[in-house]
């Protein structure tokens, strides 16, 4: 019991004193997950648009697969990207394994299905009446698609925020692809896992509180967006 209390006291002092290692790990976590979210958005939103606006065979099946992948285990995403980036893998020549860029790719792969799915939900939330109005106002197909995406922007942003939340809190892909190298690929989640196993409870608790703080910011942001 004492150990836990001590841990919290030390954790607070680490955060308040702006411990350089804590700051560095937090900054890296944010940077990698933000980058992953940006990359995933660039891929997922147009992809979601394409699936929504095109009619093709197997569309229903594809959407079901995408929804299944919402629950893609983080270690499986990590394993998949690890195999791609490992020296013997098809993208091994890029030398991205155990680098922050590799981690960005891993987290992006992890959340792309979620973002595609959320984009689909957001676009089907735009009523038929709205798209009729847009077409009747003389929009070309491209103009209509862009206007409908714009109309769905708040719902899409909601999906992006959820995706970021999943990226920053995952540990599987970060560990497998990043390797938890101190000062290079160590992020909040992998650091917590390591420090806990090494008995550095205070540092783990400090990092855990920061992670929770980020989760809270994400939730509040989501709430604000959904209120619009």
């Amino acid at each position: 019991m004492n150990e836990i209390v001590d841990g919290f006291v030390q954790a607070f002092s680490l955060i308040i004193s702006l411990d350089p290692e804590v700051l560095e790990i937090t900054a890296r976590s944010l940077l990698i997950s933000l980058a992953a979210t940006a990359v995933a958005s660039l891929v997922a939103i147009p992809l979601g648009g394409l699936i929504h606006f095109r009619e093709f065979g197997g569309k229903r099946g594809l959407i079901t697969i995408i929804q299944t992948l919402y629950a893609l285990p983080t270690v499986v995403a990590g394993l998949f990207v690890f195999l791609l980036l490992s020296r013997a893998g098809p993208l091994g020549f890029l030398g991205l394994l155990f680098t922050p860029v590799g981690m960005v790719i891993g987290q992006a792969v992890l959340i792309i299905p979620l973002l595609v799915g959320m984009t689909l939900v957001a676009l089907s939330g735009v009523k038929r009446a709205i798209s009729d109005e847009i077409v009747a106002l003389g929009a070309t197909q491209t103009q209509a698609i862009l206007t409908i995406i714009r109309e769905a922007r708040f719902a899409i942003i909601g999906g992006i925020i959820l995706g970021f939340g999943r990226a920053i809190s995952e540990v599987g892909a970060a560990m497998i692809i990043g390797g938890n190298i101190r000062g290079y690929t160590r992020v909040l989640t992998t650091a917590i896992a390591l420090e806990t196993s090494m008995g550095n409870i205070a540092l783990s608790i400090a990092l855990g509180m920061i992670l929770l703080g980020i989760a809270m910011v994400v939730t509040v942001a989501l709430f604000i967006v959904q209120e619009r």
Partner: protein
Amino acid sequence: MIRFDHVCKRYGEKEVLSNLSFEVREGEVFSLVGPSGTGKTTILRIIAMLDNPSSGTVMVMGKDTRTPDALRVALRRQMGMVFQKPAALRGSVADNVALGLKFRKFPPEDISRRVSEVLDLVGLSGYEGRRTNTLSGGELQRVAIARALAPGPRLLLLDEPTANLDPVATEKIEDLILSLNEKSGITIVLSTHDMAQAQRLSTRIAVVLDRKICQLGNPFQIFYQPVTREVARMVGIDNILAGEIVANEGGLASVDVSGVILHAPSPLDPGTRVTLFVRPEDLFIGKDATAGRSSPRNVLPATILRLIPQGPNTRVTVDAGVRLTGVITRQSCQELGLSPGMTVSVSFKANAVHVVPVEKAG
């Protein structure tokens, strides 16, 4: 301007339009009138190329609507459509009204000027910055009209433009429709279930009943010379009588309606079974047969059955051997001291009777 040629429309098994052919002329106000669910909206959606006919040809501004997308967009850019329940996009009124202009790549300074102009036109000056989700139904309707008008269309399609509006707002929109047509020569196709509105606004009216156009003509033809019972009922002709022509002297026919002989202009020969239509306003009801009237052809003694007040008027139903309904002002009803059971005289001119042979009257 628009030509429908044998157009059918089916949604799955359900046929919504059945072999429709008609033309809308440049510069007219053309009304589609009929109860809801008869295909009026579908006709407008086909003109706007939001729906495709299942068969048949639709020409708009001389172009076949079965054309590649790029040409359809070009064609659509010369029209404006206002839906029965307009939908606004998120954002401000100005954003919404500017949409059609942005699609057409108008320069920004033209857009803001044009937006103010059309908002002014629909009586919403100063509404530019309002969020669309704070608008009332009537305001939204007017924003939708402004949005459709902003790019300066040659053809305006209005689906029940006043169905959700109060009488004052309705009058404003009707004035706007007439002045747009008169001043800018815009061709207007509108749908309405309000016969009186169609009469006020239209150059020509198409009565849409049961997936078909039952009658197409100017308001006088529709209101005074309906071709079928259904049209007659829709345009408020209460007196629909079945009879047979018994004599015809130089175009003035005598018609036997269950024992009562009525006179009406008709070229039809004796022996023809006919339906007679008489507008209630054309019936004269008085104590004395010829009071205030110049020798009406049809004069019948009658007993008052019912008096129903209707705004400033009273509807009088009488038994004159046949049942007839007339409308008189409430004032003259009081002056005459009418009451049920009273004996009166009903008279109307031969010209007030519209005769249709039974085959056509269905």
